[in-house]
């Protein structure tokens, strides 16, 4: 796959800087699923690195591979190729048993607070399970109460079952459980997407507070660009299994470089009728191609309003076109 060989990669680049080394590094990651209809290239050669204490936002539409990235990092899915380095250790393709000690460093929180909690377990046993599994600790009542207070739940409710809690409270339960082993990195997969606006704001503020208090590092995955902007220090945009743009938060929102990022930003409705009435939308025709399709040239070409000849033949590599601003598009080179 020629498209995934970068001249320099955003993963290696950042680690050579004087900043502290990346706590999590993903290099050349590919996740391909064989299906009867052909190979689905869910993730097709991505490089990412996350610094300690940073929140990296990962955005993209359904099927772009953003959740697969997270699931591969925590070991729920085995990569086809590439390396995943957590605190200096390679962890790709480890078995569930080999992965277990790493749970004290790396945790994941899922989108659906209804599906990810066992309905037959009390909240205390859900939050306390990591202590039992990892430390053989049966009575962790004190820690459970502390964790519940930490995430804004009333510890006196610990004997209750998940269905007795609202969506926002269940997301807090999932978070308390993820925090039980005091991890360094948390992968958050659409953690507020299922929540109502008023509750979403509460959980976003909580995530922010916890990050500061506990010195956490987040990979924050979401499809909502306004939510990602609020949570992230840097943002990566995915399309069809690849990263098409990567930059600091303020830079990418103010000066998007890739036509897909531009279109995404212009499609987000703004809660202001005056702005909405005058806003120019970039209309993307069509839909995301099937991931089993073999695509020649730029994967975004078929929907890109700015596509030109070269896009049909060459896969654009992710390049640093501006200081710390990476884009996988031929346009900047064409312009210069």
């Amino acid at each position, binding site marked *: 796959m020629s498209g995934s060989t970068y001249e320099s990669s955003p993963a290696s680049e950042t680690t050579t800087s004087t900043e502290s080394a990346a706590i999590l590094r993903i290099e050349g990651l590919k996740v391909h699923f064989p299906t009867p209809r052909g190979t689905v290239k869910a993730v097709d050669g991505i490089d990412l690195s996350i610094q300690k204490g940073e929140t990296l936002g990962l955005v993209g539409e359904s099927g772009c591979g953003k959740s697969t990235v997270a699931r591969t990092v925590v070991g729920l899915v085995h990569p086809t190729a590439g390396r995943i380095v957590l605190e200096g250790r390679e962890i790709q393709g480890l078995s569930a048993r080999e992965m277990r000690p790493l749970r004290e460093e790396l945790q994941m929180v899922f989108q659906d607070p209804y599906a990810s909690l066992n309905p037959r377990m009390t909240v205390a046993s859900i939050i306390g399970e990591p202590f039992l599994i990892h430390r053989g600790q049966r009575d962790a009542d004190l820690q459970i109460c502390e964790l519940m207070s930490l995430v804004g739940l009333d510890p006196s409710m610990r004997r209750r079952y998940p269905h007795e809690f609202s969506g926002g409270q269940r997301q807090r339960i999932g978070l308390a459980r993820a925090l039980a082993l005091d991890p360094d990195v948390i992968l958050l997969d659409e953690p507020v997407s299922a929540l109502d606006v008023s509750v979403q704001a509460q959980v976003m503020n909580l995530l922010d507070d916890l990050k500061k208090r506990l010195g956490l590092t987040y990979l924050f995955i979401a499809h909502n660009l306004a939510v990602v902007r609020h949570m992230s220090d840097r943002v990566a945009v995915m399309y069809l299994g690849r990263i098409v743009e990567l930059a600091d938060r303020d830079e990418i929102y103010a000066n998007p470089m890739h036509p897909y990022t531009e279109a995404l930003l212009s499609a987000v409705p703004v809660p202001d009728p005056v702005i909405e009435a005058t806003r120019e939308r970039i209309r993307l025709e069509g839909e*995301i191609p099937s991931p089993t399709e073999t695509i020649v040239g730029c994967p975004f070409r078929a929907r890109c309003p700015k596509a030109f000849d070269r896009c049909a033949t060459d896969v654009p590599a992710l390049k640093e076109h501006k200081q710390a601003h990476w884009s996988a598009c031929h346009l900047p080179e064409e312009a210069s």
Partner: protein
Amino acid sequence: MSSTADTLLQVDGLRTQFVLDEGTVTAVDGVTFDVKKGEIVGIVGESGCGKSVTNLSVLGLLPKPQGRIANGSVKFEGRELVGLSENELRKVRGNNIAMIFQDPMTSLNPYLTVEEQLVEVVELHLGMSRKDAVAHAVKLLHRVGISDAANRIKSYPHEFSGGMRQRVMIAMALLCDPEVLIADEPTTALDVTIQAQILELLKELRDERGMGIILITHDLGVVAGMCDRVIVMYAGRIVEQAPTHELYASPQHPYTQALLKSVPRLDEAMHEHLFSIEGLPPRLDKGPFTGCTFAPRCPQVRDACHQGEPALEETSPGRHRRCVVPLGELETLA
């Protein structure tokens, strides 16, 4: 609300209840609004606020036997719908009032081709011949943006993408040329770029056909771009109703203020913390409530809020709100 020649739908004092083993739950109470020709009316609110139940009541689609309209009236072009037989209601649905839902997969039959499903509707409601019915269905599929409609109509629902399925649903809703379209979270399951396409299509159809549209959504951005008027619901009640521009420029209910303030948005400078409304909406099965249902979470609560439920009052032509805090004393959120 006064009825004019343009008024298509008039809902007045609607109260909908569910009779459950645990007791009777009032899901919607005192809901009053109307929809005029060519108008898009947004109903916003969070889960459980009664926005969907309101529209199921309008359509006569409440789950039986638990759901019932306990009070109020729903009129289509002056004709009372509450109390109509199932047979008469079925004629109204489709011919006059059609609907589309969030997930087209739950409303389309996975075992039948799109042709079979669309043609069935046309034959049933319009009495067309098979051949004319197919031609009519193809024409509408083409109109909603399905290319190669004459062939695609032979496909099964799963062979379409989410966005295309929503287009099929819209075509199906338009088959009998309804005067009112109720769209319940029509783009919530779709990606933003596809959402933009579908919303654009709904606006075009409104312009072409002069349909009245009720757009139910939780997304205040979608409302801002689509609706002429907005109804804000909380705990089964309308708390505010206003022309869209006025509602966003000067919300007159503390809940509307707070809701607008808690949305992270792309067009504003970043704040360290998002504004958030503490607590949760009340559980409706814990009712009836003695005071304002928002009082326990309201930053501007005062004693009067607990003395009986505030009435929905008109503050200026076309603007209504349910709050005891006098307008002059209402604080705006910084």
